[in-house]
């Protein structure tokens, strides 16, 4: 079945809104949608919700004969299925271009980065090795399938337990889960892909595009990275020309996002481990709340409510400088900072100019101009937060380091993060 055509007015509106830095669901430019990770009853089954995009990954294993060129390494097999359940544009059985692209990207991201120790999967060299198969099914397509698929795949691999194997001389015994506890795979690092969509020939950039934004975009840049800031794979599609600074900036944004997502995954895995130990019933059916038939489970759409530029201006003029607060990241030398731990930046760029995450333009701008605009935006944000908006996106803005020591911009940010209220917002954080 053909998918709904995109009308001219939708396309024009979306592009106009993007030029005004507005997204359809009220997110900021670098915000991800709300992410939820749940596990099934089997080891290795994982569901990932990224906004309305829903993806399921299942890992299974089998003893097979290894490849002739690599007799002592296990085999990893990846498969992404675009089920017609996800979108009317997907047809069952047919290998569309999108499906080939997603499969290749997932393979490059997980296999070539050597995140799994394949040598530990060897049982008898040259005869029997474990073949680990990861199947990813798309359940609902609302944009950014690649990110959701990569998160689901790596989480499922971390969650998976393979049967224990005992070798005594020539005899190999594979123990069932009842006889001996299954053991987890040995995973070195968790590569996660982050997608950036470009509009108007690379002028505007959005992270985590939703389906409508994907239809209007010019090109897509996918960066797969792990939390140690190692890039595992980069792919640019759509044929747009990207400048070096843009790619650098995207990689910095990606590193921040990846560390957040990795934390979320580890928390989810922890919770699941605790639940299983405590003997609670766990699994997909249990993680869905009880509901009556007529209720539709949708999260409240965030409504961006205020038109406060005038009010914000007043406040900015009348406000006095807030007291100096010690910023959390390390500032070794004025003008240079680090976000989070990790290796020293070897890209050769001074981090000072690149950390402002509010503006998208790659053109040269006056430093002062940038800073005052930033201040205004932050106050605007504070107002919005104060106005009881149900902000359910994973906004990054709290951790932005503004590397101009003479201007105490850190205070409003931390204030706004503590102001984030609403039972709904709290509930969502707990759910995570």
């Amino acid at each position, binding site marked *: 079945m053909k998918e709904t055509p995109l009308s001219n007015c939708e396309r024009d*509106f979306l592009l106009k809104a993007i030029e*005004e830095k507005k997204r359809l669901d009220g997110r900021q430019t670098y915000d991800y949608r709300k992410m939820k990770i749940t596990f099934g009853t089997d080891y290795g089954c994982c569901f990932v919700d990224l906004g309305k995009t829903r993806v399921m990954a299942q890992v299974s294993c089998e003893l097979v004969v290894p490849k002739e060129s690599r007799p002592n390494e296990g085999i990893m097999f990846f498969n992404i299925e675009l089920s017609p359940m996800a979108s009317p544009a997907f047809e069952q059985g047919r290998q569309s271009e999108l499906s080939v692209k997603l499969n290749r990207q997932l393979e490059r991201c997980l296999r070539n980065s050597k995140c799994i120790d394949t040598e530990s999967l060897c049982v008898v060299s040259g005869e029997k090795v474990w073949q680990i198969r990861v199947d990813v099914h798309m359940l609902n397509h609302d944009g950014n399938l690649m990110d959701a698929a990569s998160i689901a795949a790596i989480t499922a691999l971390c969650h998976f337990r393979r049967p224990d194997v005992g070798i005594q001389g020539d005899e190999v015994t594979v123990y069932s889960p009842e006889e001996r506890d299954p053991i987890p795979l040995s995973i070195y690092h968790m590569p996660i892909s982050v997608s950036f969509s470009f509009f108007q020939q690379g002028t505007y950039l959005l992270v985590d595009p939703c389906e409508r934004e994907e239809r209007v975009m010019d090109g897509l840049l996918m960066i797969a990275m792990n939390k140690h800031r190692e890039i595992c794979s980069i792919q640019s599609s759509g044929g747009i020309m990207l400048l070096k600074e843009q790619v650098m900036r995207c990689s910095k944004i990606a590193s921040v996002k990846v560390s957040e997502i990795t934390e979320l995954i580890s928390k989810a895995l922890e919770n699941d481990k605790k639940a299983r130990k405590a003997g609670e019933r766990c699994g997909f059916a249990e993680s869905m709340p009880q509901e009556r038939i007529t209720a539709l489970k949708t999260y409240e759409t965030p409504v961006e*409510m205020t038109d406060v530029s005038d009010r914000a201006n007043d406040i900015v003029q009348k406000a006095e400088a807030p007291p100096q607060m010690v910023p959390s990241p390390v500032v070794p030398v004025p003008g240079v900072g680090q976000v989070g731990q990790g290796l020293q930046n070897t890209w050769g760029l001074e981090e000072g100019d690149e950390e402002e995450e509010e503006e998208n333009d790659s053109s040269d701008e006056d430093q002062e101009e940038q800073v005052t605009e930033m201040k205004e935006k932050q106050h605007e944000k504070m107002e919005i937060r104060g106005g009881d908006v149900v902000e359910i996106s994973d906004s990054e803005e709290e951790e932005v380091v503004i590397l101009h020591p003479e201007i105490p911009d850190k205070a409003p940010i931390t204030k706004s993060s503590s102001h984030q209220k609403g039972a709904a917002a709290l509930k969502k954080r707990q759910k995570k």
Partner: protein
Amino acid sequence: MFSSLKDKVGQVLLPGDEFTFDTEDTISLTTPVKPEKVVCGPGLRRSGDRLQVCKSGVLRHKAPNMFWMDSQQRRYVPVKGETVIGIVTVKSGDIFKVDFGGSEQASLSYLAFEGATKRNRPNVQVGDLVFAQFVVANKDMEPELVCVDSGGRANGMGVFGGGGLLFTVSLGLVRRLLSPQSDLMQDLQKLFPCELVVGMNGRLWVRSSSTQRTLIIANLLQSCETMTAPQRKALFARVAEGTL
């Protein structure tokens, strides 16, 4: 049957539930018995002497004797006389093919616009939005749309759409918006001025004075589906405060 239907008003029913004439009804032999007429609305079907439910949802009642099933459906089935928002996909010769969200595309003749003649063609491009009504809509034939009413006047129909946002909601919400005393509409009117086109196929088009306001209205309408009336009023009040 009337009484048994009345009992179930407001309850959730599933397809396959039946209503039959109660045999326990005592028929009075002295007073004249008036035959009860029950009008079945959408979702209810008469088969023989029973009334069957064919859609899942909540049973609603309107005095004196109208019953129907209220369901949250998003799939539109074309019905003659209903006005919908369609997207023009193909412009070929004399007709346009219009996608309205159904199983096949409808055809719209270029002469079916107000003031259109063979020489004076309407200015319609591929990808434009049209507001039209069905003139042929049954399961055996290709659906046909027109942008004029029976008197040849446009009556609000035709091509539209610069600068606004198109989005989809469930059919139930659309019917609620279009019902005569809709407090949803009244709440919306108190908010801020905007243009709103409502298509019975679940598509809404909004345009307001700024992009921000348009987005606000679109998000509000999409979230109204799953809210009760007090929750909705509270949300609208908060938004109105925020924009003052």
